[in-house]
């Protein structure tokens, strides 16, 4: 009997069990990375700045994330008297949840064959995977806007407004840069996009036949412009330096989260790092071959994600912050035309090669 794809119809019990297991594992790994990303960030930036970073809590500060979590958990949870209560409480949830569920469409390894069933290493393979990612990214912004608005504080309001201005300037370019990718893969499913990238480059593009077999068809080779655009827009998406305008510690006094404390603040904090993991995972899946590589599937994925996160941290330690009109200028007048030109060029090449 040939193995068949495990689905709810052919074995409901096993399917549900496997699903729950996948969700638990993915979620725990994600939260683990989120917690320790804070430690890594402080350590890496510390060493870049001739400091040591956390050293006291545990060996080289390894227990610092837990201590931070405990501290925030026991802090008094303040809701400002003038704040709009419902949306004030809702906002952190609205940021964190979209950040966490985006991981559902990221494939983290090749299909497993167990007991006659094919089990994909992915929580769910949506045929509109990329759209789902973009939608969730867009939804997360509502949380920031809502937080800024409901706090009823002027700095927070400015932060919220900034993030609306930011979202319309970079999301178009980010979306268009991805168009070029699924023009090549001819699918919106992340699983299929990885499958395309696994093939050797010299087979996909016949005129590159002289290249050795081991160079894969990663989209970073065929779509370098889209890759750069997506990474830059990704930095804007996750509100990190140089695009941390809604927060802007030194201008807006932490902007949209000025009024937040305790666990609500911790949720913003977690969302920021979860977003960082997600954007790295999406960028890796779309441009760097996803789980493809020399080691076992998910190990490759994790290594690439960590590489990306190191890059983001490095950027934060090095660069100043852009001004928000400059970000709009970049988004509308530089990235958008570039992304459009890239789509046109890709279309032309695809037609010519057929």
């Amino acid at each position, binding site marked *: 009997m040939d193995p068949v794809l495990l689905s709810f119809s052919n074995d409901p019990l096993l399917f549900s069990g496997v699903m729950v297991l996948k969700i638990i594992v993915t979620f725990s790994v994600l939260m683990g990375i989120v917690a320790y990303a804070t430690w890594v960030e402080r350590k890496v*930036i510390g060493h*870049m*700045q*001739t*400091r040591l970073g956390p050293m006291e809590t545990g060996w080289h500060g390894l227990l610092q994330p837990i201590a931070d979590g405990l501290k925030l958990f026991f802090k008094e949870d303040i809701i400002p008297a003038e704040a709009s209560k419902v949306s004030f409480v809702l906002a952190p949830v609205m940021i964190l949840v979209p950040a966490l569920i985006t991981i559902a469409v990221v494939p983290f390894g090749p299909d497993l064959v167990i007991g006659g069933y094919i089990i994909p290493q992915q929580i769910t393979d949506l045929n509109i995977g990329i759209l789902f990612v973009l939608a969730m990214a867009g939804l997360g912004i509502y949380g920031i806007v809502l937080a800024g608005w409901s706090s009823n504080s*002027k*700095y927070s309001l*400015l932060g919220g*407004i*900034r993030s609306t201005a930011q979202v319309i300037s970079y999301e178009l370019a980010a979306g268009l840069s991805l168009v070029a990718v699924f023009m090549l893969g001819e699918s919106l499913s992340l699983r299929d996009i990885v499958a395309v990238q696994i093939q050797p480059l010299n087979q996909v593009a016949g005129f590159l036949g002289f290249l050795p077999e081991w160079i894969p068809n990663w989209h970073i080779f065929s779509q370098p412009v889209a890759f750069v655009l997506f990474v830059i827009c990704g930095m804007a998406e996750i509100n990190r*330096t*140089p695009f*941390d305008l809604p927060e*802007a*510690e*030194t*201008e*807006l*006094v932490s902007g949209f989260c000025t009024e937040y404390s305790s666990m609500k603040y911790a949720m913003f904090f977690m969302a920021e790092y979860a977003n960082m993991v997600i954007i790295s995972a999406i960028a890796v899946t779309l441009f760097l071959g996803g789980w493809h590589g020399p080691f076992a599937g998910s190990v490759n994925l994790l290594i690439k994600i960590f590489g990306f996160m190191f890059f983001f941290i490095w950027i*934060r*330690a*090095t*660069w*100043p*912050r*852009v*001004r*928000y*009109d*400059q970000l709009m200028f970049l988004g509308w007048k530089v990235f958008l035309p570039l992304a459009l030109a890239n789509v046109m060029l890709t279309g032309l090449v695809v037609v010519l090669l057929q």
Partner: protein
Amino acid sequence: MAHNEIMTVNMGPQHPSTHGVLQLILELDGETVVKATPHIGFLHRGVEKLSEHRTYHQTIPLTDRLDYLAPMSNNLGYVLAVEKLLDITDKIPARANTVRVMLAELTRLKSHLVWLATHALDIGAMTVFIYCFREREAIMDIYEKISGARMTSNYFRVGGLSADLPAGITDDIRAFAVAMPDHIEMYEGLLTGNKIWQKRTMGVGCIDAAAAIDIGLTGPALRSSGVDWDLRRDNPYSGYEDYDFEVITRAEGDTFARYKARLDEMRESCKIINQALDKLAPGPILADCPKVCLPPKKDVVNSIEGLIHQFKIITEGFKPEAGEVYQGIEAPKGELGFYLVSDGSAQPYRMKIRPPSFVNLQALPQMVEGSLLADVIAAIGTLDIVLGEIDR
């Protein structure tokens, strides 16, 4: 708020980027600043009034607390004014003058390092902050060895210095002055060529030469608007005329010009420190004015004149003749002036301080009105204000 198109934001006195306790009332249209009104006075300690009840020597420690990022410059400005009042400027020994110049330039480096650190941090470049503070720490160590305090130095005295330099300190200073240009090179590597840094500073907070003179800007802020004016060269004191250094001017008058000008000035300061170290020869550190300068301890114990002089200076102070003087020096932030009026008693009748930050702050509304909120931060940083001397 919903029915009003102009939003008023209270920026400060508790705000991470207002460099202390400056309060700005900003009227914003979206993020565009329509009007900016600085409110000052949160750090007022009445230094000018306090000095009227103290002897001239007792005011020196108060000057440490004016521009607390450049205490030795304040000490220098004050003692020079008192010396001018006493008419003993020519009697200051060469060694004291050389040490004064050397430490004043070291102080300029110290002040500019804090300026660069906070300015870069305000604009978002956090690594430069730590690097600058690392070098500043080296200067603080030198300060501590010389005066015993890291910030409140209280080292200069009317007529010279409070004590001679400790043994071996010249090696520390030399090593620092030799290494510093490389560090400045590194800050430039992180910022000058960075496109974001250029975009955030070029064409931001412009002040042209005429406006700068109208406002009374001094120091690097004036020189970056194309006005070639430096008291160290144009009205020298403490023997600055014997040093070979360039006065850095730039034409653009924007934040980037002020940034470059201050960095180049730091390089010039290193040159001056090196020259001062070459010049430094053994000799007395206090002027030969027994009625003004405390006698050495051995004279106090061994001679009756020494004992009387010490007793009189300690219990009563010295009494300059009635008159008034103004002495300005080129402090790191601009012209720091002390205006002293004496009525012939041991306390000044009036002391008026002209703090550079206070005058330079006037340029802020003009620099930021019509620009974005983010530029306000850059403008505050580039003016290099210290509230300790604005509020006095």
